[in-house]
C-alpha cells in the first residue's frame, strides 16, 4: 500500500482526505504512483503533470523520506520506505505568497 499526501487544492478536487492509499502493481516509481492516483481520481489528470504522463507542472514538487524527488527520473524506483507504506509520498504545491 502506497500512501500519497495531496496538497489542499487537490484535496478539494478529489474530496478525499489528506492522505490517499493506493495499490500499485509492479515496481513502485513516481510514474506508477501517479498513474494509479490518476486512475483512482481522473479529475487530477493534468493538474500534477501533463496529460498522458507528461512533465511535472512547474510549481508542483514531489518529496519523500526528507528528499526532494522532483528532478528524479519518473521511472526510477521510489525509496523502499515509500514502497512499503512506511513513509508517504508527498505531492506539494510550491510555496509562494506575499
Amino acid at each position, binding site marked *: 500500500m502506497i500512501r500519497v499526501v495531496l496538497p489542499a487544492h487537490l484535496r478539494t478536487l478529489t474530496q478525499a482526505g489528506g492522505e490517499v492509499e493506493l495499490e500499485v502493481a509492479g515496481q513502485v516509481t513516481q510514474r506508477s504512483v501517479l498513474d494509479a492516483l490518476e486512475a483512482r481520481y481522473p479529475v487530477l489528470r493534468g*493538474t500534477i503533470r501533463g496529460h498522458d504522463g507528461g512533465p511535472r507542472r512547474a510549481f508542483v514538487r514531489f518529496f519523500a523520506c526528507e528528499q526532494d524527488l522532483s528532478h528524479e527520473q519518473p521511472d526510477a524506483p521510489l525509496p523502499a520506505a515509500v514502497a512499503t507504506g512506511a513513509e508517504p509520498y508527498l505531492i506539494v504545491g510550491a510555496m509562494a505568497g506575499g
Partner: protein
Amino acid sequence: MSGVRVLVGTRKGAFVLNSDGKRERWDVSGPHFAGWEIYHVKGSPADPDRLFASQCSGWFGQLIQRSDDGGRTWEPVGNRFSYDGEPGTHQWYDGTPHPWEFARVWHLEPSLGDPDTVYAGVEDAGLFRSADGGQSWQELPGLRCHDSGPSWQPGAGGMCLHTILEDPSAPGRMFAAISAAGAFRSDDAGQSWRPVNRGLHSEGIPDSDAEVGHCVHRIAMHPARPQVLYMQKHWDVMRSDDSGESWHEVSGNLPTDFGFPIDVHAHEPDTVYVVPITSDSLHYPPEGKLRVYRSRAGGDDWEALTTGLPQEHCYVNVLRDAMAVDSLDDCGVYFGTTGGQVYASADAGDSWAPIVRDLPAVLSVEVQTLS
C-alpha cells in the same frame, strides 16, 4: 415568478447570487472551488440550469466545471486543451518567436441553441469547441492559424482570447477578440477567420492602423441588431454598423476612453454602458470616483451614473468580463470590481447598490434571467 441569477468568478472561487425579480434581497452561495481562480462562469441560453465554469491555478492548471442544476452542484468535465497540429509560434514581448502554450481558459461561451455546445477562448489565443457538454474539446484552428498569427503579441495580461459572440441572425457568423491581436470574424461557424479591425487606431503599436495588433478589450452586441458592434479598446470606445467591416470612434465626452468592459441594454440597442478607467498605467477610476457611463445614442453622448456608487477614495478596477445585464422589463445592470464588490442596478443604471462588498477580486460577472 421571475428572478435573476448572477454568476461571479473571483480570484478565490465562484459565487452564485440569486434574487427574485425585485432584485432587492439576495441569496449568496459560495465560494465554490474555494481558493481557485475562476475566470468565468456562464449559463447556457438553451438550458439555464446548465452552467460552465473555468477553474484554474498557477500551480495545478486548468479545470472546467459543469453544473446541471443552476450552480447547486458541480462536476468536473474535460480539461484537455490541445492545439490542433504543430502549434508554431507567435511573438513574445521582446519580439522573438515564442511557442504557442496553453495557459488557461479566459472565457466560456455556451452556444445560443444547443446546451451541449460551448466555446472556450484560451490563452495563448485559441478557440476551442465542445459538442458534448464540455467532456472533450477540439480546437477550431482556423483562427490561430490565420496568416497573421506569427505576428500576434500578448497584452500585459497574456495573449488571451476573451470575447466570443455568435450572431443570432446569421448562422455561422461569429466574432472573437484577442489581446493584443484584435477582432476577427468567421462566417462559416469558426472554420476560417479574417481580421475586422479597419478604423481602429492604436498609438501603442508601430503601425497605428495595422490590420492586426490592436489591444481590443471587449466587444458587445445586442441580439436584436447584431450588425452593430460596440468595442472597448485599450484606448477608445468604438462602434461598427456593418458587422465589423469598419469601425468609428464613439468615445465622445467620456472623461477617459480607457477601460475594459462594455455592454448593451437588454431592450434598447442604442443604450451602451462603459466604466472609464484613468489610463493603462493607472488602473482605477478617474478622481477616485466610480462611475458607469451610459449612452442612449449608441455612443458619443455619455452621461455619468453615480447614484449609489462611491464618489471618493475609490481605486478599484472593473475587468473586461465583469459587467452584464439582465432582461427583466426594467433592465438590470451588474458589475464587479477588483475590490470585491458586485454592484447591481434594477433601473438601467440610474441607481446602484452593492449585492456583496467583500468578495475576492472579481474577474467576471454574468447574469441569467429566470422565468
